[in-house]
Protein backbone atom coordinates (compact mmCIF):
# COMPACT_ATOMS: atom_id res chain seq x y z
CA UNK A 1 0.00 0.00 0.00
CA UNK A 2 2.25 2.79 -1.23
CA UNK A 3 -0.46 5.22 -2.34
CA UNK A 4 -2.76 6.51 0.44
CA UNK A 5 -6.23 5.01 0.38
CA UNK A 6 -8.94 7.68 0.45
CA UNK A 7 -12.59 7.34 1.43
CA UNK A 8 -15.03 10.20 0.93
CA UNK A 9 -18.56 10.41 2.34
CA UNK A 10 -21.35 12.96 2.30
CA UNK A 11 -23.01 12.87 5.71
CA UNK A 12 -26.77 13.46 5.46
CA UNK A 13 -27.82 15.89 8.17
CA UNK A 14 -31.53 15.33 7.83
CA UNK A 15 -31.70 11.70 8.91
CA UNK A 16 -30.52 10.75 12.37
CA UNK A 17 -31.49 7.12 11.75
CA UNK A 18 -28.79 6.68 9.12
CA UNK A 19 -26.11 8.63 11.02
CA UNK A 20 -23.01 6.50 11.45
CA UNK A 21 -23.24 4.60 8.18
CA UNK A 22 -19.98 6.13 6.91
CA UNK A 23 -18.16 4.96 10.05
CA UNK A 24 -19.59 1.46 9.70
CA UNK A 25 -18.43 1.35 6.06
CA UNK A 26 -14.93 2.53 6.97
CA UNK A 27 -14.69 0.00 9.78
CA UNK A 28 -15.63 -2.86 7.44
CA UNK A 29 -13.12 -1.72 4.81
CA UNK A 30 -10.28 -1.35 7.30
CA UNK A 31 -10.97 -4.83 8.66
CA UNK A 32 -10.52 -6.19 5.17
CA UNK A 33 -7.17 -4.39 4.94
CA UNK A 34 -6.07 -6.31 8.01
CA UNK A 35 -5.20 -3.29 10.19
CA UNK A 36 -4.77 -3.88 13.96
CA UNK A 37 -8.10 -4.23 15.80
CA UNK A 38 -7.32 -1.49 18.33
CA UNK A 39 -6.48 1.00 15.57
CA UNK A 40 -9.72 0.20 13.77
CA UNK A 41 -11.72 0.52 16.97
CA UNK A 42 -10.19 3.88 17.91
CA UNK A 43 -10.70 5.26 14.43
CA UNK A 44 -14.27 4.07 14.03
CA UNK A 45 -15.40 5.39 17.42
CA UNK A 46 -13.77 8.79 16.83
CA UNK A 47 -15.31 9.03 13.38
CA UNK A 48 -18.72 7.83 14.57
CA UNK A 49 -18.88 10.49 17.28
CA UNK A 50 -17.89 13.08 14.69
CA UNK A 51 -20.53 11.90 12.28
CA UNK A 52 -23.20 12.05 14.97
CA UNK A 53 -22.02 15.55 15.93
CA UNK A 54 -22.33 16.74 12.34
CA UNK A 55 -25.89 15.42 12.11
CA UNK A 56 -26.95 16.83 15.50
CA UNK A 57 -25.32 20.24 15.30
CA UNK A 58 -24.45 21.10 11.71
CA UNK A 59 -27.01 19.56 9.36
CA UNK A 60 -24.43 17.14 8.00
CA UNK A 61 -21.20 17.67 6.12
CA UNK A 62 -18.40 15.63 4.59
CA UNK A 63 -16.11 12.96 5.99
CA UNK A 64 -12.76 12.03 4.44
CA UNK A 65 -10.59 9.20 5.66
CA UNK A 66 -7.00 8.94 4.39
CA UNK A 67 -5.19 5.70 5.13
CA UNK A 68 -1.40 5.64 4.80
CA UNK A 69 1.08 3.03 5.96
CA UNK A 70 1.96 5.07 9.05
CA UNK A 71 -1.29 6.75 10.10
CA UNK A 72 -4.96 7.32 9.34
CA UNK A 73 -6.41 10.83 9.07
CA UNK A 74 -10.09 11.66 9.46
CA UNK A 75 -11.25 15.06 8.22
CA UNK A 76 -14.81 16.03 9.17
CA UNK A 77 -16.03 19.23 7.59
CA UNK A 78 -19.36 20.98 8.08
CA UNK A 79 -20.97 24.29 7.30
CA UNK A 80 -22.84 24.47 10.58
CA UNK A 81 -23.04 27.29 13.13
CA UNK A 82 -19.48 26.86 14.44
CA UNK A 83 -18.42 26.29 18.06
CA UNK A 84 -18.48 29.50 20.15
CA UNK A 85 -16.20 28.20 22.93
CA UNK A 86 -14.07 25.19 21.99
CA UNK A 87 -12.62 24.75 25.49
CA UNK A 88 -16.12 24.58 26.95
CA UNK A 89 -17.24 22.16 24.24
CA UNK A 90 -14.29 19.91 25.09
CA UNK A 91 -15.45 19.53 28.71
CA UNK A 92 -17.01 16.16 29.43
CA UNK A 93 -20.71 16.60 30.15
CA UNK A 94 -21.12 19.96 28.44
CA UNK A 95 -23.68 19.82 25.65
CA UNK A 96 -25.95 22.14 23.71
CA UNK A 97 -28.02 19.26 22.29
CA UNK A 98 -31.79 19.39 22.59
CA UNK A 99 -34.04 17.16 24.69
CA UNK A 100 -35.01 15.37 21.50
CA UNK A 101 -31.38 14.41 20.87
CA UNK A 102 -31.08 13.23 24.48
CA UNK A 103 -34.07 10.96 23.92
CA UNK A 104 -32.15 9.39 21.01
CA UNK A 105 -29.25 8.48 23.31
CA UNK A 106 -26.84 11.29 22.44
CA UNK A 107 -26.02 14.78 23.65
CA UNK A 108 -24.36 13.61 26.87
CA UNK A 109 -21.50 16.03 26.31
CA UNK A 110 -19.10 13.22 25.45
CA UNK A 111 -18.80 13.62 21.68
CA UNK A 112 -15.75 15.87 21.33
CA UNK A 113 -14.07 14.45 24.48
CA UNK A 114 -14.48 10.93 23.06
CA UNK A 115 -13.04 12.05 19.71
CA UNK A 116 -10.00 13.41 21.53
CA UNK A 117 -9.77 10.30 23.71
CA UNK A 118 -9.68 7.90 20.78
CA UNK A 119 -7.51 9.89 18.38
CA UNK A 120 -3.78 10.48 18.82
CA UNK A 121 -3.94 14.04 17.50
CA UNK A 122 -6.96 16.30 17.07
CA UNK A 123 -7.37 19.81 15.72
CA UNK A 124 -10.54 21.90 15.57
CA UNK A 125 -10.88 24.82 13.15
CA UNK A 126 -14.15 26.62 13.69
CA UNK A 127 -15.67 29.93 12.70
CA UNK A 128 -19.06 31.14 13.85
CA UNK A 129 -21.59 31.14 11.06
CA UNK A 130 -19.13 29.48 8.65
CA UNK A 131 -18.53 25.97 9.91
CA UNK A 132 -16.20 23.58 11.64
CA UNK A 133 -13.46 21.23 10.48
CA UNK A 134 -12.24 18.56 12.86
CA UNK A 135 -9.03 16.78 11.85
CA UNK A 136 -7.97 13.65 13.70
CA UNK A 137 -4.93 11.42 13.25
CA UNK A 138 -4.48 7.90 14.53
CA UNK A 139 -1.01 6.35 14.28
CA UNK A 140 -0.65 2.76 13.19
CA UNK A 141 1.92 1.18 15.45
Amino acid at each position, binding site marked *: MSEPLVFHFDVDGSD*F*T*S*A*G*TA*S*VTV*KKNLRQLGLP*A*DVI*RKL*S*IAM*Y*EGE*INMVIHANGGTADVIVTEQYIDIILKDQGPGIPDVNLAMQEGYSTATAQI*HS*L*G*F*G*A*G*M*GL*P*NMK*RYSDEMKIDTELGVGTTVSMRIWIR
Partner: protein
Amino acid sequence: MKISDVKELLEAEVLSGEEHLGRDVFSACGCDMMSDVLAFAKDQAVLLTGLVNPQVVRTAEMMDMVCIVFVRSKKPTGAILQLAESSGIVVMATDIRMYEACGRLYINGLRGEKHLEHV
Protein backbone atom coordinates in the same frame (compact mmCIF):
# COMPACT_ATOMS: atom_id res chain seq x y z
CA MET B 1 -19.69 -16.39 30.67
CA LYS B 2 -21.36 -17.40 27.40
CA ILE B 3 -24.07 -15.37 25.67
CA SER B 4 -26.37 -18.33 26.30
CA ASP B 5 -25.79 -17.82 30.06
CA VAL B 6 -26.84 -14.17 29.69
CA LYS B 7 -30.04 -15.36 28.02
CA GLU B 8 -30.80 -17.79 30.86
CA LEU B 9 -29.98 -15.37 33.68
CA LEU B 10 -32.12 -12.62 32.19
CA GLU B 11 -34.94 -14.94 31.07
CA ALA B 12 -34.54 -13.27 27.72
CA GLU B 13 -35.91 -13.97 24.29
CA VAL B 14 -33.31 -14.11 21.50
CA LEU B 15 -34.42 -11.96 18.55
CA SER B 16 -31.43 -12.36 16.26
CA GLY B 17 -28.01 -14.01 16.16
CA GLU B 18 -29.14 -17.31 17.71
CA GLU B 19 -26.14 -18.99 16.06
CA HIS B 20 -23.70 -16.91 18.13
CA LEU B 21 -25.01 -17.91 21.60
CA GLY B 22 -21.88 -19.96 22.26
CA ARG B 23 -19.60 -16.92 22.21
CA ASP B 24 -17.82 -15.75 25.36
CA VAL B 25 -18.49 -12.38 26.96
CA PHE B 26 -16.12 -10.76 29.45
CA SER B 27 -17.76 -7.50 30.49
CA ALA B 28 -21.01 -5.56 30.34
CA CYS B 29 -22.35 -2.04 30.28
CA GLY B 30 -25.86 -0.87 31.23
CA CYS B 31 -26.62 2.49 29.67
CA ASP B 32 -29.15 4.53 27.69
CA MET B 33 -26.69 7.22 26.61
CA MET B 34 -24.64 5.94 23.70
CA SER B 35 -21.81 8.48 24.11
CA ASP B 36 -21.27 7.16 27.63
CA VAL B 37 -21.03 3.66 26.19
CA LEU B 38 -18.46 4.94 23.68
CA ALA B 39 -16.32 6.45 26.45
CA PHE B 40 -15.17 3.10 27.79
CA ALA B 41 -13.36 0.25 26.12
CA LYS B 42 -15.05 -3.11 26.35
CA ASP B 43 -13.79 -6.57 25.75
CA GLN B 44 -16.35 -8.79 24.01
CA ALA B 45 -18.99 -6.98 25.98
CA VAL B 46 -22.75 -7.07 26.45
CA LEU B 47 -24.70 -3.82 26.12
CA LEU B 48 -27.87 -3.57 28.22
CA THR B 49 -30.10 -0.67 27.25
CA GLY B 50 -33.62 0.68 27.28
CA LEU B 51 -32.95 2.81 24.23
CA VAL B 52 -34.40 1.48 20.98
CA ASN B 53 -32.97 2.91 17.76
CA PRO B 54 -30.43 1.90 15.10
CA GLN B 55 -27.67 3.88 16.83
CA VAL B 56 -27.65 1.26 19.58
CA VAL B 57 -26.49 -1.33 17.05
CA ARG B 58 -23.97 1.04 15.45
CA THR B 59 -22.57 1.94 18.87
CA ALA B 60 -22.22 -1.74 19.73
CA GLU B 61 -20.54 -2.39 16.41
CA MET B 62 -18.07 0.47 16.87
CA MET B 63 -17.14 -0.95 20.29
CA ASP B 64 -16.83 -4.53 18.99
CA MET B 65 -19.60 -5.56 21.39
CA VAL B 66 -21.11 -8.96 20.75
CA CYS B 67 -24.56 -8.83 22.37
CA ILE B 68 -27.32 -6.26 22.96
CA VAL B 69 -30.03 -6.82 25.58
CA PHE B 70 -33.10 -4.59 25.43
CA VAL B 71 -34.43 -4.34 28.97
CA ARG B 72 -37.87 -3.51 30.47
CA SER B 73 -39.85 -5.10 27.62
CA LYS B 74 -38.49 -2.85 24.88
CA LYS B 75 -38.72 -4.46 21.45
CA PRO B 76 -36.54 -3.42 18.50
CA THR B 77 -37.93 -2.98 15.00
CA GLY B 78 -37.13 -5.29 12.08
CA ALA B 79 -34.69 -2.74 10.66
CA ILE B 80 -32.71 -2.71 13.90
CA LEU B 81 -32.59 -6.51 13.93
CA GLN B 82 -31.42 -6.59 10.32
CA LEU B 83 -28.62 -4.18 11.13
CA ALA B 84 -27.54 -6.37 14.06
CA GLU B 85 -27.77 -9.49 11.92
CA SER B 86 -25.44 -7.97 9.30
CA SER B 87 -22.94 -7.14 12.05
CA GLY B 88 -23.11 -10.54 13.71
CA ILE B 89 -24.41 -9.11 16.99
CA VAL B 90 -26.81 -11.14 19.16
CA VAL B 91 -29.97 -9.24 20.11
CA MET B 92 -32.27 -10.28 22.94
CA ALA B 93 -35.10 -8.74 24.93
CA THR B 94 -36.10 -9.19 28.55
CA ASP B 95 -38.99 -7.97 30.70
CA ILE B 96 -36.56 -7.38 33.57
CA ARG B 97 -35.61 -3.79 34.39
CA MET B 98 -32.11 -2.37 33.96
CA TYR B 99 -31.02 -2.43 37.62
CA GLU B 100 -32.14 -5.99 38.19
CA ALA B 101 -30.71 -7.18 34.85
CA CYS B 102 -27.27 -5.68 35.58
CA GLY B 103 -27.37 -7.10 39.10
CA ARG B 104 -28.10 -10.62 37.92
CA LEU B 105 -25.18 -10.58 35.49
CA TYR B 106 -22.81 -8.96 37.99
CA ILE B 107 -23.40 -11.40 40.84
CA ASN B 108 -22.92 -14.25 38.41
CA GLY B 109 -19.45 -13.04 37.53
CA LEU B 110 -19.85 -10.64 34.61
CA ARG B 111 -18.09 -7.50 35.77
CA GLY B 112 -18.07 -3.95 34.45
CA GLU B 113 -15.98 -2.43 31.73
CA LYS B 114 -12.31 -1.67 31.87
CA HIS B 115 -11.39 1.99 31.77
CA LEU B 116 -9.62 3.06 28.61
CA GLU B 117 -6.26 3.58 30.28
CA HIS B 118 -6.04 -0.13 30.97
CA VAL B 119 -6.56 -1.16 27.36
